[in-house]
């Protein structure tokens, strides 16, 4: 092990690798800060650039984009209230209100430190506990996956908005939207009505951009009087005090470690990436907090939980990929593809055959986390300048970026028509107080839910297996508890309002 580690370090600490990693970190931060540019997209765009590099340099550069991307999503989530990536949905819940309350610098600094510690914890867990964690993750069969998604959906529905019914409605709407287009198992077209527009279904990125970016931007310009009086998007106080934020972050050690471990575990579960970890870590922090009612109003615990949770998935996602050849997320799948381009087979023999490469990747994760921290701490004042940009510039520019993001995914003009329709529909839903996060989660999780439900019943037609397999049962019980707690919480709130 030591020989492999040293060989990996030797390959990693070369000038060219360090430079490409640094560029990767900056590119990841910037790309993810732009709404519509997901980490997956940034990684996909980086892939062709790594073909000429040696395997470790290429993968290390992509890992740098990956780790940088998780922090970059924080910037637009905190400053614009638009998650730069699906993994920053929960970050908007508290970081955006904090920025709105005149503390954008605090929201960013807390998020940066939380991301750093999340990535650090995940890298350490990856190095120490990769094999046993991968064994747990691989025990999940189709029944457990389906139950996991039920659990995730109930958590999301109960987590956001004032009405659980509305949360469930938008979550189910997301699941339905995901069924439009080709059936994932038989390829039969569903609900397309022979229209080119719907032939390929609703790509989740287009839904994400339309729901969060377009509808949010329309909300930004709806108060004509405030705009005519030159009211800035975010108040002028942009003081950035990283050391104060470090102290504040470390004052919640349990939250930080719990959220990071949630991120590592969720990252290790194939298919369940940063988007679920972000929300689950936030949910756990809210439930454990002494002041859960302050969540959603700019609570630092919410920012720390969501950011450490999503950043920790970067290491977690590598666990099943390295140990078993199963990518934990779309990003891990691209990373896997980059290794295969270099003729390296990913699977159980990877550690045995290419120990130096694997340990080099572990070290690259750690190094990338430090690089992201340094880049953010030294350049965040530049990012904070976003607050100086008037709404008249930001809104049209971000809408243009949304069009680019929606089109570039599949090079399809129909996707930008879908973007418009979804944006308007999202705006109507938001005006009627419907939470939008469950809808996007539904679209992402829908195909996974359907495929696993059908696969489970293909394996065994016995429905009771969902309730008799221990992990599946535990997840369904957790889902029921989540619904029960949410109903109790809403009733208490209603009673308190009436009293």
């Amino acid at each position, binding site marked *: 092990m030591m020989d492999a580690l040293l060989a990996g370090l030797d390959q990693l600490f070369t000038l060219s690798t360090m430079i490409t990693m640094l560029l990767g970190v900056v590119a990841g931060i910037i790309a993810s800060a732009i709404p519509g540019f997901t980490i997956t997209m940034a990684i996909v765009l980086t892939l062709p650039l790594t073909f000429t590099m040696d395997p470790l340099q290429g993968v290390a550069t992509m890992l740098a984009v990956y780790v940088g991307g998780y922090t970059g999503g924080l910037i637009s989530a905190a400053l614009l209230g638009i998650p730069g990536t699906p993994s920053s949905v929960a970050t908007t819940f508290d970081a955006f209100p904090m920025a709105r309350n005149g503390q954008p610098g605090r929201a960013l600094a807390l998020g940066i430190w939380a991301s750093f510690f999340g990535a650090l914890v995940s890298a350490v867990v990856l190095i120490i506990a990769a094999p046993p964690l991968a064994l747990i993750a691989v025990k999940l069969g189709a029944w457990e996956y389906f139950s996991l998604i039920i659990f995730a959906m109930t958590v999301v529905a109960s987590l956001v908005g004032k009405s659980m019914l509305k949360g469930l409605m938008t979550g189910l709407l997301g699941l*339905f939207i995901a*069924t439009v287009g080709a059936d994932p*198992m038989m390829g039969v077209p569903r*609900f397309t009505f022979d229209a080119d527009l719907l032939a390929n279904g609703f790509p989740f990125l287009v839904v994400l951009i339309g729901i969060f970016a377009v509808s949010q*931007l329309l909300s930004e310009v*709806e108060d004509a009087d405030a705009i005519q009086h030159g009211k800035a998007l975010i108040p002028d106080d942009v003081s950035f005090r990283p050391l104060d934020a470090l102290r504040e972050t470390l004052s919640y050690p349990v939250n930080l470690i719990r959220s990071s471990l949630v991120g590592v575990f969720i990252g290790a579960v194939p298919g369940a990436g940063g988007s679920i970890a972000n929300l689950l870590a936030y949910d756990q922090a809210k439930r454990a907090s002494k002041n859960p009612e302050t969540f959603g109003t700019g609570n630092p615990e919410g920012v720390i939980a969501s950011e450490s949770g999503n950043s920790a998935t970067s290491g977690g996602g590598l666990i099943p990929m390295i140990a078993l050849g199963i990518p934990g997320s779309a990003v891990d799948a691209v990373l896997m593809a980059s290794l295969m381009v270099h003729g390296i087979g990913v699977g159980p023999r990877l550690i045995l055959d290419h120990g130096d490469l694997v340990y080099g990747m572990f070290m690259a994760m750690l190094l990338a986390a430090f690089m992201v921290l340094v880049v953010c701490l030294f350049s965040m004042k530049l990012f904070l300048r976003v607050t100086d940009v008037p709404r008249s510039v930001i809104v*049209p520019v971000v809408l*243009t970026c949304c069009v680019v993001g929606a089109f570039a995914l599949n090079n399809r003009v129909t996707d930008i028509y879908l973007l418009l329709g979804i944006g308007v529909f999202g705006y109507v839903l938001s005006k009627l107080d419907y939470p939008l996060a469950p809808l996007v989660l539904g679209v992402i999780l829908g195909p996974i839910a359907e495929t696993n439900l059908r696969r489970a019943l293909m394996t065994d037609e016995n429905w009771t297996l969902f309730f008799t397999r221990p992990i599946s049962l535990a997840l369904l019980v957790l889902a029921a508890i989540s619904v029960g707690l949410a109903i109790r919480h809403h009733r208490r709130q209603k009673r308190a309002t009436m009293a």
Partner: protein
Amino acid sequence: MSSPTSTRSPQGEPSSESTGRSGPLAHLILNGTLAAVFATLFVRAGDLPSSMWEPLGSGSFPRLVLAALVAINLALILKEARTFAALAPAEKGLVGRWCWRHRLAFGVLALFSLYIFAVPMLGFALASLGFLLAGQWLLGARSGKALLIGLVVALVFSFGVDTLFRDVFVISLPRGLLG
């Protein structure tokens, strides 16, 4: 229809204007429409083919979801109907005032819609240039300095982005007239 419904803005700022029955009415229209659409789709999903290899066919999962959606929308209709009955009618002229206050949002939406449909015809660069200039002007960039900055921003995010994607990322954005 988006209506003057929210007692709260997206940023959580309470609205000072009493919306009366208009909020529940908007919910009733939305949930009623959605319930009808989902019920129709539920019936149509029954025609999707089944498979001899698996107990669930193509239509089973969507039907499961659509049935739940119909049930939830009906529950929301019942809830909103009770609220509607308990409230007084909205003040006169409320919708007009609401529309006037949201004139910029409607303006941006109209401009954005034009832009979306112009992209395939004019190409990304030209359509974006026009949208960025008009959008910035609409949102208040009227002084000479603001217009100059607006022009630079528009050029960078139209022709600049187009060049970046074509030459660096090898992704060709719609070319339209320039093709």
